[in-house]
């Protein structure tokens, strides 16, 4: 059976879906991906769907599941390269892909992962009890 390759780029896993996703293939991808996150210790997953003409509720749910599973394993998921026609169809169908981050292309996806990672780290640092007792709000980033 065909499998979708999972490529490791530093601490990010890149999955490019080039064929129509069928049930077996999607399940295999979920398994492969979670195995690889654990074995490589990756902190980010990028799923490239540039080649997908059709994203239906099944594919949408699979993307959401992958995102949720990765999150449990401490890896953020970004779906990149969604085609305009696909986005319009999803909106028309009322499938908002909850819990899935998206970016226009792989480059922006990597950037988003970096920012999310930094943001998560910063908020973890911020949420520690402040030894000096200073409770003023952090400076506004704008």
């Amino acid at each position, binding site marked *: 059976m065909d499998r979708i390759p999972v490529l490791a780029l530093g601490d990010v896993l890149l999955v490019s879906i080039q064929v129509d996703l069928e049930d077996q293939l999607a399940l295999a991808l979920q398994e492969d991906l979670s195995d690889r996150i654990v074995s490589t210790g990756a902190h980010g997953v990028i799923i490239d769907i540039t080649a997908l003409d059709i994203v239906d509720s099944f594919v949408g749910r699979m993307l959401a599941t992958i995102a949720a599973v990765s999150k449990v394993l401490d890896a953020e998921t*970004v*779906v*990149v390269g*969604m*085609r*305009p*026609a696909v*986005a*319009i169809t*999803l*909106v*028309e169908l009322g499938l*908002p*892909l909850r819990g899935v*981050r*998206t*970016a*226009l*292309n792989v*480059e*922006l*996806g990597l950037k*988003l992962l970096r920012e999310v990672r930094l943001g998560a780290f910063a908020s973890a640092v911020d949420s520690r009890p402040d030894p000096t007792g200073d409770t003023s709000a952090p400076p506004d980033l*704008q």
Partner: protein
Amino acid sequence: MDAETSARLAAVMVARREAVLEKWASAVRDTMRGRLTRTELTQQLEDIYDALASAFGAGAETADSPAAADLLAIVADLSRSRARHGFTATETAVSIFALKDALLDELGDSGETRLADFVKFSLFVDKLGLHTFETYVNARDAVITEQSEQLLELSTPVVKLWDGVVAVPLIGTLDSARSQVVMERLLQMLVDTGSPYAILDITGVPAVDTQVAQHILKTVMAAQLMGAQCIISGIRPQIAQTIVSLGIEFGEIVTKANLSDALQYALRARGVEIARPVTRSAL
């Protein structure tokens, strides 16, 4: 029309070609008021005349018999070109109907067959005239459709404001067809330029009803699904009031009063700082 009549008509048309053409051309020329050159017009009429004569020669009994197919095609071409050049329907139809008068004088005094022949000829030409009219209307319709498509394209430009920021200044009423075009073009532009920020400026939209708002919301959601952020700008006070009184929820979508604020927001989000140069007078 029977085969005999066709043959007789064909004979007359061939024999009296120059005279009939001359009369026909001069009658048509009067209605054209110099918008077609003499040679052009004569050429067109000659083509039709010869096609008609050969249709009769081939035994065409009505305008839709196979022998008249060439003739119909030539007539259709003529009326299409007239429609495109802005001639009226009457002017186009008269070009065909004037042939009747021209031929009447040349039918000769062949007794009782003359009237019968002319009536049949007249019926045939009437059919041709109707065909002209129909082609004319179709051609006009095609022109209108073409123009409205062009208008649609023209009225929805997607402009790049900054590296990574594109904008769509919407002008005029938004209907479903137009908002579909806007949506597709904007999303395609996002992909092509890899811009994570898009600004929808609705300064030029005269009214926002629930349907227009729905279209805008769909565009914004589609952009978000693709991983870009959409900012709505140019909301005029009356429109803001309408939106609230209609109970339309824009939710988490960023809205700004004008394009400049929206651009500033997008630039800040991209980490671009804008500062005035420090001048001597300021120091």
